[in-house]
């Protein structure tokens, strides 16, 4: 079990570490149960050692400015609250500049755990699945 703080306002944000072929980046992300896939910025993907321009797979993403085909990559490891998941699919897309977070931690990471959002005690708990 891993536990972290849950803010009382704004998006649910967590520190997440992405490890790639070159190095790693820790970024703040919004925990997003409405996102099937995890979304990271293009910069984050490049910084850790991937080239989104050469991604073999692209997915359609509906944004405020229209439909975009964005790169999908497999990142070596993703860690949140000390819980590591390896070979995680991520979509590379820059959130709007007003966003205080660098990405969305989506269901393809969260489904590895039982996620408990305890708003009463302001805690986020990840229980690894048996």
């Amino acid at each position, binding site marked *: 079990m891993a536990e*972290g703080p849950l803010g009382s306002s704004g*998006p649910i944000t967590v520190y997440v570490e992405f490890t790639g072929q070159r*190095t790693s980046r820790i970024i703040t992300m919004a925990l997003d149960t409405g996102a099937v896939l995890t979304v990271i910025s293009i910069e984050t993907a490049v910084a850790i050692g991937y080239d989104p321009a050469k991604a073999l797979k692209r997915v359609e993403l509906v944004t405020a400015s229209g439909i975009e085909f964005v790169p999908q990559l497999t990142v070596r490891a993703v860690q*949140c609250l000390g819980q590591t998941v390896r070979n995680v699919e991520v979509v590379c897309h820059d959130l709007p500049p007003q*966003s205080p977070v660098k990405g969305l931690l989506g269901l393809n990471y969260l489904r590895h755990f039982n996620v408990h959002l305890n708003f009463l005690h302001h805690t986020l708990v990840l229980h690894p699945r048996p």
Partner: protein
Amino acid sequence: MKANIEQLRRRYRREWLLIAVEQMDHATTTPLRGRVLAHSPHRDEIDQASMKYPKPALVVFSEDTFPPGYAAAFVVDG
């Protein structure tokens, strides 16, 4: 400047930060202390600096909230 990460986030209000992490709580994936490599109110400038920096680092905005008057809904259907 090496300092507590949360203190750094308060010091550089409404700025983006690139921080070399020097102390980490691995049990909770929480950066504790670090050294500011770059800071700017413009995310693009920090993105450029991050892409050139070859070592592990933290990229973070000073706050976790949207500016007043903004709200967001993020849905990604793969």
